[in-house]
């Protein structure tokens, strides 16, 4: 092929982007993604925004619309501050798990960066959202935008009706419990915005129709078992979704407050899979922008200037600093994810003896099938537990430090050597386990017959105490509950170690 012919196949040169070029790049990338690598994606909706708008999107955790709350204002101010000072660059993109999949591109980006973002978000993240089991089970891409529209409208309406202080109070309390407002074992049914509104109205009307002041005062005769030990406990099983429990059973909440609890709970639920698949999701997207754009280069559709810019940005993204280096901020999910995805490909294509021993199933297999399978059926914890290879542990120089309360010093528990691989991998996987990050707190008793108090149990994991903030959270919970809330901490043997009680202020 002559130089001229090669040039003709280039999509563009130079850093300037135009809408027409965006479309051509998108088409070229989609061609490779869909036809060569068979990535299954939602349709894409690519939106060009300015940097201020990116800051806006940041504050609402990436959702294009959200209900108003001061904490988003705080988040916005914090981001803006960091951005203005130059302490932090903006992400090049934000992508929303919705159908169609919405991606934001910043207008300041160069053409190469836009192409990178398109490959990363519109084909990488997008296919992950569509394929991964957690997202399939727990989020409903078709309805999220609709739901947020509903939520925003509802919150604004409530503010108008009941005053912003009361709405803010309720939302504050809900936010405090947000981390414990996630269902892990049950599917929420998909709903559209119209259904959601109808159901909300139904719930409210039902509550009204059942309300009977006189009936309530009639003494119940079923008091026989009251106060006796062995009386049916409620809930019969401990409940870990605190927000759900509050929404359903809080004795004093008004219907609109219940609805607010529900909104926060739904939002928390929506973000739940993202927290569980950070490494995989970013790794997957990074792996694909790298693969797709390299393919674009191989086909002669982009020039080396383009590729250099892409690679320089790619390298920045996947930098992993050592624990003792400046700017270390934990394990970089992009770095680990990308390395693992690439490593799986390597194991399939060019396995070493070590790989054959560790990964007999996939060594020498079809990398594309293996990767696809991993993407669909794993979350961070299981993905690392299954696929982290000794080579990567060596590359990352991983080591585990044991921090035990009974010892004066910390001890190096395992390092990247023959004796340490298995343990190291298990520990790292565990680090991505939700229970490791979040204390296990469950509702064990709601004293319906007695003082209506709520009993929470913190099942302590290896003696790790709750942060002092827990008292603040209890206050919030008490506010929602309206009656006393008690929290007991039990060790692994079920022995109660500590106990605290919060009484409602009114």
């Amino acid at each position, binding site marked *: 092929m002559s130089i001229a012919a090669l040039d003709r196949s280039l999509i563009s040169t130079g850093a300037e982007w135009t*809408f027409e070029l*965006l*479309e051509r790049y*998108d088409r070229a990338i*989609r061609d490779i993604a869909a036809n060569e690598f068979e990535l299954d994606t939602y*349709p894409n*909706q*690519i939106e*060009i*925004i300015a940097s*201020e*708008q990116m800051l806006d999107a940041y*504050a*609402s955790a990436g959702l294009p619309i959200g209900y*108003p*709350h*001061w904490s*988003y*204002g*705080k988040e*916005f*101010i*914090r981001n803006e*501050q*960091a951005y203005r000072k130059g*302490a932090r660059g903006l992400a090049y993109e934000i992508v929303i798990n919705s159908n169609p999949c919405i991606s934001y591109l910043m207008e300041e980006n160069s053409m190469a960066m836009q192409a990178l973002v398109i490959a990363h978000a519109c084909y990488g993240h997008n296919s992950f959202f569509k394929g991964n089991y957690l997202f399939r089970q727990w989020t409903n891409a078709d309805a999220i935008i609709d739901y947020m529209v509903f939520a925003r409208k509802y919150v604004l309406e409530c503010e108008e009706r009941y005053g912003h202080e009361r709405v803010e109070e309720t939302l504050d309390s809900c936010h*405090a419990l947000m981390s414990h407002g996630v269902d892990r074992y049950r599917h929420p049914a998909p709903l559209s915005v119209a259904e959601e509104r109808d159901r909300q109205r139904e719930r409210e009307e039902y509550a009204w129709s059942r309300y009977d002041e006189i009936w309530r005062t009639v003494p119940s005769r079923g008091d026989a078992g009251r106060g006796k030990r062995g009386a049916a406990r409620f809930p019969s099983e401990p409940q870990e979704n605190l927000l759900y429990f509050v929404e359903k059973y809080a004795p004093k909440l008004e219907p609109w407050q219940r609805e607010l609890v529900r909104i926060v709970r739904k939002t928390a639920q929506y973000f739940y899979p993202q927290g569980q698949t950070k490494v995989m999701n970013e790794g997957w997207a990074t792996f694909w922008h790298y693969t797709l754009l390299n393919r674009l280069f191989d086909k002669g559709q982009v020039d080396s200037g383009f590729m250099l810019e892409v690679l320089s940005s790619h390298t920045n993204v996947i930098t*992993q*600093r*050592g*624990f*003792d280096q400046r700017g*270390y*901020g*934990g*394990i970089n999910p992009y770095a680990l994810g990308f390395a693992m995805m690439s490593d799986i490909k390597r194991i399939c294509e060019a396995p070493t003896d070590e790989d054959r021993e560790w990964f007999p199933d996939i060594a020498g297999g079809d990398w594309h099938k293996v990767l696809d399978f991993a993407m669909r059926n794993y979350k961070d914890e299981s993905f690392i537990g299954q696929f982290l290879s000794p080579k990567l542990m060596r590359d*990352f*120089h991983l*080591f*585990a*430090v044991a*921090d035990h309360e009974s010892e*004066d010093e*910390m001890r*190096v528990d395992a*390092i*990247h*050597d023959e004796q*340490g691989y298995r343990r*190291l991998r298990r*520990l790292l996987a565990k*680090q991505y386990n939700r229970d490791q990050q*979040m*204390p296990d707190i469950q509702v064990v008793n709601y004293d319906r017959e007695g003082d209506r108090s709520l009993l929470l149990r913190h099942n302590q994991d*290896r003696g*790790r*105490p709750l*942060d002092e*903030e827990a008292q603040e959270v209890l206050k*919030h919970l008490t506010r929602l509950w309206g009656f006393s809330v008690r929290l007991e901490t039990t060790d692994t043997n079920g022995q109660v170690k500590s106990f605290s009680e919060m009484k409602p202020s009114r």
Partner: protein
Amino acid sequence: MSIIIDRRLNDRNKNAVNRQRFLRRYKEQIRKSVGDIVSERSITDMEQGGNVSVPVKDISEPSFRHGSGGDREIVSPGNRKFTTGDRIPRPTGGGGGGGGSGEGDGEGDDNFTFALSREEFMNLFFDDLELPHLVRNFIGEVKDFKWHRAGYTPTGVPANLSVGRSMRNAMARRIALGAPLKRQLAELQAAQAAEEEIEAMRQRIERIPFLDDIDLRYRHRVKEPLPISRAVMFCLMDVSASMTEDKKDLAKRFFTLLYLFLSRKYEKVEIVFIRHTDDAQEVDEDTFFHDTRSGGTVVLSALKLMQEIMAARYPGDAWNVYGAQVSDGDAFGADPEKSRACLVDQLLPQVRYFAYIEVPDHEHRASPLAHAYQRIDSDRFAMKSVTARNEVYPVLRELFKREATA
């Protein structure tokens, strides 16, 4: 198929509503922070909006989290020298040995600091302050009008006729109506048409009026009330030997705040600095604050000078006059009484507000001047004793407390 949408023109300030909510929620903390700024900043920086900070613990959102303690293992990258079994001293602060929970943003500060725009700063600052007697009477019952040109109008009195504009319109009209006729005339002439036809055409042309009613244009003028949006602020300060640097500093802050407040209320604010010992002089700002002078104390001299300057340069019906006096109150003999009389009889009727700030040596002992001033019963007068920097702002708040009756 991908859809590409340009959203750049969409609303950019989506978060304004959330920012407002944030400011509203932490108003008290932010106000406190603003108060701190006032007590620490130098005057020249005062009018710049500014960075306020709110304690992080106040704005943190609590959640159930693991505290430090208990047993755990942390996996980190970048091992260079450790082998299994090595002991590492526990880092102080109970953190996780470079552990997995790194926030990583360097936001370990105790305060959440952010910038308020000048607007926001000022608003927070003066929010519920309103000057007493800040009646906009000069807008309400207007004494002064000014005629403003406001373009041209087709109707009006003959005196306002704009001849040039009317003639221009007339000419335009004549050309517009006459040109086609003239062209036809020329055609007829060229075609050597009948004389009558040509004559008829000529007459048609002549019938176009030279000046028509619709050409007339009058200068349009509107009468606009001229509000008195000017204020003058008299700063009176005792610079006798008993006034230490600290006291002057307090005075400086007080004047600055007053100035800021006035400059927000009025389009134009002038300041007159009068310093006095046993006699009074008008000086410039620098001299006022930084030049030292020694001598006794005669308060009356300053009041008299203020009165003279007012009479000469700032007549009360054209200027909103404010007075602010700072002294340690060490006046002697008949001076306090005379000053009081002068203030009550001569000055107060002419000023909108007069504030006296005392910076006493001893906190609880009323000075002779304060003793005399205490008997002034006028809602245009206020006095306060100030001993510390951070008292200045609260004093102002009280001085200019919103008046329900205003």
